[in-house]
Every structure is written in structure tokens, then in C-alpha cells.
């Protein structure tokens, strides 16, 4: 990017709705790459995005998109694509119609707009159904139409509010690859989710929001490395939990075992990476059939729990 101003600059912004706090004193700057905004429902992700898109006016602090206040000026939207959390669309329109119409709002002619719309619909993998009415689309297809509309003017900054919400696994994978592709094209992408695993598959650069506060900002792996040093559980589903437990208990990273229910073994560890390193060898040595390995602590809630715990 040629200009010095970051794509997104949020400076000590607070936004409250009456008594309810949406965003509390958040400051951050984002420029380039894919950034995941993580937080449980109600953490303030959508509020943050609506502040960025000039839908809401901050009560305190300032919001700048490419150095311009989006509340008073629509100029930044030439360079921004936004996928809102709203589910409603013009169901009577075809996807091509929908994207073309919105493209024309960028000042394109009808022909330019149609060409661009076809291009982006192809990019999100909808070119074969682009002449069907949106009302007949599945959830994942609708999300991809929304993404296509946000990309139609080739923006530098793309903001996606929960684009994977409610999608089936196949749609999820295809949307993720679209987002990764955008990141690799050198665009600034901001994507929100309340599922750690989704974000992890797309990017390492994350922002964690909780109760309107900025909880953490940085590399997901660095944050996770901190988390690894804390008590963790690994849940194995196998045919002989007792035998397997006896094998594990002698290993160094494991400090305890538990049998939560029939056919399940829970291993307790202080070093998740080390535990995972020994896991395959121990299982093979024991000769037990293991049908599933789960990390029940490897989710946003435990990450948040850890971060909040670390704060206090």
C-alpha cells in the first residue's frame, strides 16, 4: 500500500447503547493481511464493524478508514467491501442482478458492472448458478453472494462479519479458501468469528474482543503457546481406556488421567505440545484401538478463560 495511513485506525473508541456497552476503549490499527476478530457473541465484533462502516457514531474516540472518518464521509467506501451479518437479501433478484446493481453504485456502467459481477461470482464459485434467484440459494451460497458484492469494486479493505456463520462444512471450506486467496492478493481482510478453529484455519493474526474490551492482539500461535503451558485435557475414545491409561501415566507431560464415561480416557497435561508429541507412539505401543482424539480445551472459551484469568 502506497499511503502511510493504515487501512483501519481505531483510537480509544467507546460505544454504548444506553446502559449497554458495545465497545469499551478499544484502540487498534490494521493494515495488510488477514486479521481475525475473535470473541463470543455479544463481545462487540459487529459493533466494531458498524463503527468502521459509519453505521454507528462512536461515543468516544475516533475511527478512521484510510485516514477518513466514515461517519461523516462516504469516500472510504470506494476502497472497502463490507459483508454484514444481516441475513436478509433481495430474494427475488438473481445473484448476477444483485451484484450488478450494487456494482453500479460504484459508478460503473451497466456493462462494466455486469462484467465485474460475473468475474467476482466466478471467483466465489457461483458462476454456474448466477442466474438463479437468491431466494432459492442455500445458506452458504447466500454468504458467497454477499462476499461477491463486497469484492465487486476490487477493494483494498474487506470487512466480513461472521461470513461462516450457519454454513455447511463444504461452503465453509470454499469461503475460507476465498478469504485466504484475498489475503494472498495483498488485501487487508478483517473477518470476525466466535469459533477459534475457523479463524485458525485462515490466519494467525488475531484480535480478541470480550465484553467490548480488547483482550489480546497479535499472533494466534504466540497466544496459544502461552495457553499450552497451562493445564489441558485430551479426550481419547478407545476400546480399553484402563490399559491405555496405564501406558500414559508413566509419560512425563502427563500428570493425571480420568475416566469420564464408558470407553473414554481423559489425559491431563501441563504441556499440550509435548503431550501431542508422545501421543502417537504411546497409542501404537499400547496396541489399543483409538477411534477419536479431542481437545476439549482447544476452543475460544478456554482461551478466553485463560486470558481473563491471566489478567486478574
Amino acid at each position, binding site marked *: 500500500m502506497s499511503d502511510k495511513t493504515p487501512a483501519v485506525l481505531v483510537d480509544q473508541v467507546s460505544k454504548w447503547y444506553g446502559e449497554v456497552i458495545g465497545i469499551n476503549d478499544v484502540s487498534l490499527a490494521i493494515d495488510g493481511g488477514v486479521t481475525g476478530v475473535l470473541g463470543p457473541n455479544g463481545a462487540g465484533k459487529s459493533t466494531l464493524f*458498524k463503527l468502521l*462502516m*459509519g*453505521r*454507528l*457514531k462512536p461515543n468516544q474516540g475516533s475511527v478512521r478508514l484510510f485516514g477518513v472518518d466514515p461517519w461523516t464521509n*462516504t*469516500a472510504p*467506501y*470506494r476502497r*472497502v*467491501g*463490507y459483508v*454484514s451479518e*444481516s*441475513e*436478509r*437479501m*433481495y430474494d*427475488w*433478484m438473481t445473484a448476477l442482478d444483485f451484484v450488478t*446493481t*450494487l456494482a*453500479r*453504485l*460504484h*459508478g*460503473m*456502467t451497466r456493462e462494466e*458492472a455486469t462484467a465485474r459481477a460475473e468475474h467476482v461470482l466466478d471467483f466465489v464459485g457461483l458462476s454456474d448458478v448466477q442466474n438463479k434467484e437468491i431466494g432459492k440459494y442455500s445458506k452458504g451460497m447466500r454468504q458467497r453472494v*454477499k462476499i461477491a*458484492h*463486497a469484492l465487486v469494486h476490487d477493494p483494498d479493505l474487506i470487512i466480513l462479519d461472521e461470513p461462516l456463520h450457519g454454513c455447511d462444512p463444504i461452503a465453509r471450506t470454499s469461503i475460507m479458501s476465498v478469504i485466504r486467496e484475498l489475503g494472498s492478493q495483498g488485501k487487508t481482510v478483517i473477518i470476525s468469528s466466535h469459533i477459534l478453529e475457523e479463524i485458525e484455519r485462515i490466519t494467525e493474526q488475531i484480535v480478541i474482543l470480550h465484553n467490548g474490551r480488547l483482550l489480546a492482539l497479535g499472533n494466534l500461535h504466540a497466544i496459544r503457546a502461552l495457553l499450552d503451558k497451562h493445564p489441558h485435557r485430551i479426550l481419547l475414545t478407545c476400546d480399553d481406556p484402563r490399559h491405555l491409561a496405564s501406558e500414559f501415566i508413566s509419560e512425563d507431560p502427563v500428570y493425571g488421567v480420568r475416566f469420564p464415561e464408558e470407553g473414554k480416557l481423559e489425559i491431563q497435561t501441563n504441556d499440550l505440545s509435548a503431550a501431542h508429541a508422545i501421543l502417537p507412539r504411546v497409542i501404537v505401543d499400547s496396541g489399543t484401538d483409538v477411534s477419536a482424539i479431542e481437545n476439549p480445551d482447544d476452543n475460544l472459551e478456554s482461551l478466553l478463560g485463560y486470558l481473563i484469568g491471566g489478567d486478574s
Partner: protein
Amino acid sequence: MDAKGRALSETVWTRLDRKAGAITELTIRQLRHRISTWVVLIVGVLVMALLLAFYVDAIRDDFEPVDNDGDSVDWDNDGYPQGQENKYGTSDWDGQEYPGSGYYVMTGEIVWNDDSRFHSGNHTWEGQGYLDSEWVDLDYTGSRWSGLIDWGEVNPCPEGDVLDDWWLDWGEACTYDDGSYFVSGKFRASGSVSVPESGYMQWGHMTLASYVEPEPASMYIDEDGILWDGKDVSDLETIEEVDDDGDCLANMNDNNRNGIPCDVIWILDADGDEIIEIRADYNVNEDPEESKYLGELSHRTFIIGTGKMAFVMMLGIFIPLFLALGLVRDETENGTLHYLLSKPIHRAEFIIYRLLGYLLLAGTYILVLVLLMALVTSLIGPGDSLIRLSDFPVWLGIGLATVLVLAAYGALYNTLGLIAPKYGVYFCIILGIWEFIMGMFTMTLPSASVPMLSISHWALQLIDAIVLIAWPDTLQYTQITSAFGIDSGLSFFWQPPVHTLGTQSPVVALLVSITVLLLITVAMVGIGQASFKNREIM
């Protein structure tokens, strides 16, 4: 401007143009996908079709001759129509009195304070008293209407004193055992009459009768046309020429008090080409030919009435209620606004383009409807030419008024929908009722000041102005209808425009109305924009 500057301005302009095109197109397509749109538009078409049916019916009826003054009727069944009786000065309520029947000459009377209360002779009498008769003309009989005593129904007189204990209605008589009567009314008898104290009686005789040929009733239909050469006001017509049927001459009416009975005063405007006032004596020019006046009158009344009631007050109020109220509000509530507002388009612009889309749809509909109505009515309307081209400016004026009303109400309703998303519809309904009432007031009292606070007032004034521009003689027609008592709805639906700023010019009135309607629209759009600009969108 250099080439670069020009190119830049063109770019800005065409880009604006493209955005406007995209949003107006989207708006129209959205409206087309809503059932309520179609319902309200189809109801409009049905109403117009119904009105046309009435129009065809009415226009056909009006060409049949109508007896405007009702003087072709022989009310008393004596064989002479009222017009002929008027000419001879006889009553059309008295079957014994008709042209040539002779008339009554009074020769004596007894009034309430006369000392002598007795008279005898062979007379035609009128009054109250005891009659001791040698002969009574039982054929000279009548009823309360004519004042003639009804000899067919004479009852015995009650006990007691007349005037103190009992009383007879006019046209009644009662009889005593000795064959004498007490009479109250007109009768013909030979004998002696004694008049009670404070009673009255007069007597006289009828002149000799002569036979007068009864005239056919058709002679008294359309028999008194309007005489007006349209040029010279000083050249008054002679009395005989003005009152064709002579029914005024019988009474020598001078209602306009200019000393000349049975004439018409025509008052022209300053440049002498329009009649602005007519002062006619009663029974003059009161029964003109329908094809000449009433056909034209009802045709114009229909067009003006349809324009005001159906187009401005019905379609003008209801179409925006269904189409404009949710123009921006619904997008906000549906969440689809996010797609539109994440594009580089200002919210204020957005409102304008939305309204533009609505106006394009509703305006096209109105114009098509107006032109259809114009075509049908100008083809079957009165007149010698195949098509009445002079109607088209009026219909287009009605279209213009309706479109301006649609713009003003559209902007108003849209703004209300934005300011009060939940209760906007109730405000709109209340406003609609207010507008309707103010519209009715405007039609009956155009110069009242309260209706000026409504949108419909200015639209109706606009139609009044355009009518006077396209048909300058409409003023003449309203004067003719009121001066000669010809019944038509024109004076209810049309009065000269009020807002001429003292110039009497309908063009000024037209421009004033258009300006006010546009200002209302701009103000409403502005309020909506101001409210929307500072709105946080969830």
C-alpha cells in the same frame, strides 16, 4: 473550462447519473415485486373505469332536452302547461284558471272592522262567512291548494260558535240543518252572506271567457335560450328578444334593479373578452338548449371532478401511503440497507434516488391513466369536432397536479416513516384524512386560509388554474349556471383560482401552486435527509 475540467465534470456527472440510475431502477423493481403496489394501482384503474361508465351514461342523458325551469308541466291539469299559463298570468295551481278562462274583478268587501257584516247578490266570493244560498256553482270546486271550496266533501257543522269553538281550513265548507253553509275559501253563489266579527269576505265577478288554444308541452322545453352575442355589453337586447317564452313579461320581474324588467346585465372583464358576472332578472333565459350548455357543462364538470376527487385526493393520497412510506424505512428494518450504504453513496443522495424511483413508477402510471381518460372523454365528449383537443391540456394539468402531489406526499410519508418507523403509518393515515377534509374545504371555500396548510389545497388550486388557462370560458359557464339557475355540479367542483397575487391571472396562480408544491417536497426531503443522516443503523 479546460478539456480536463470538462472531462472531470462529465465523469462526476455520469457517475452520479449511474448511481441514480441503479437505485431508481432497484426501487422500481422492488415496488413491482410487491403485491400491495399492484393492488393499489389496479384499484386506481378500476375506479377510473367506473367513473368512465358513469360519464358515458351521463353524457348521453344530458343531450336529451331537459326542461330546466319545469314550465312544460301542466300542474293543475287544465290542459295548459305552466309556461302558457305564466304568459297569460293565470295560475297553474288552479284548474279553474287558465288562459282564456277570464279573470276575477273585485267589486266589494267586508273587512274585519266594518260595521255592516251582511251582503247579498250573485257573485264570485272569497272569504269566510255564513252562506244562505239560492244557488251554488257546484262545478266551481277545488281544494286547499287552489283556495276553492271543495263542494264534493261538505260535512255538518260542529256545535258551538265558529272561530271560537271550531275552525275550518281554507277551501272547506260545512252545512247546517236548514241548508245554509259556513264557508271558508273561494266559491261562486247567489244568496246572502253574513260575515262573523273579525272575518273577511270579498266579492266580484269573472270577466268573459274566450277560447285559447292550449300549447303543447314540448314548446316549453328549451324555449328560453341564452342570448349573448359575446361582444357588446351596451347593446342590450330588447325585452321581447331576451325573454323568449314571455314568462318574465307576465310578472315584469326586475331582480337586478336596473329599472328595466326582464333583462340581463352582462359584465365583462377589463379587456372585454370574458364575462365575469351576469345579473339576470328571474325567468329570463332560464331554459337553454342542453346540447349547447349542459353537455359542455357536465363534460367539464366530469373532467374537473375526476381530476380533483379521483386523481388528486384518492390516488394522490393512497399511492404514496402504499408505495412511499417504507421506501427507506423498510430497507432499514430488513437490514438490506447495509448492502446499499456500504457503497460510496451519501445517505441524502440515497433518499432522493429512492423517491425518484417511486415517482418514476407512480408518475408513469398516473400519466398513462390520465392520457387514457383524456382519449376516451375527448372522443365521446360533446362538440362538433371528432376529438376535443382543448381537453388535453386540462388532463395533462391534472396529471401534473397529481404527480406533484405524489412527490409531496411521497417525501412527507417517507420522512414520517423514517422519523417514526413504528407509528409512521398512523401519522400518515391521520394526515391523509386531514388532507381530504382540507381538499373538500378548498373546493367549497377556496379563499379560506386554514386549507392552505394542506398539500391538496395547492394541487386543487393548480387544477383550477389550468382549467381557466385551457378553457377560458369556464368562468362564463359558472356565471351562466348561477345567473340562470341551471343546475350543474360545475360550481361545486370549480371556482376561479385564488392565489393570483392580485393579478387575476391563472398563469400566476399555476406558477404559485407549482412552486408551493415543490417547496413542500424539497422541505420534506430535507427533513428526511437530516433525520437519516444522523441515524445510527443497527
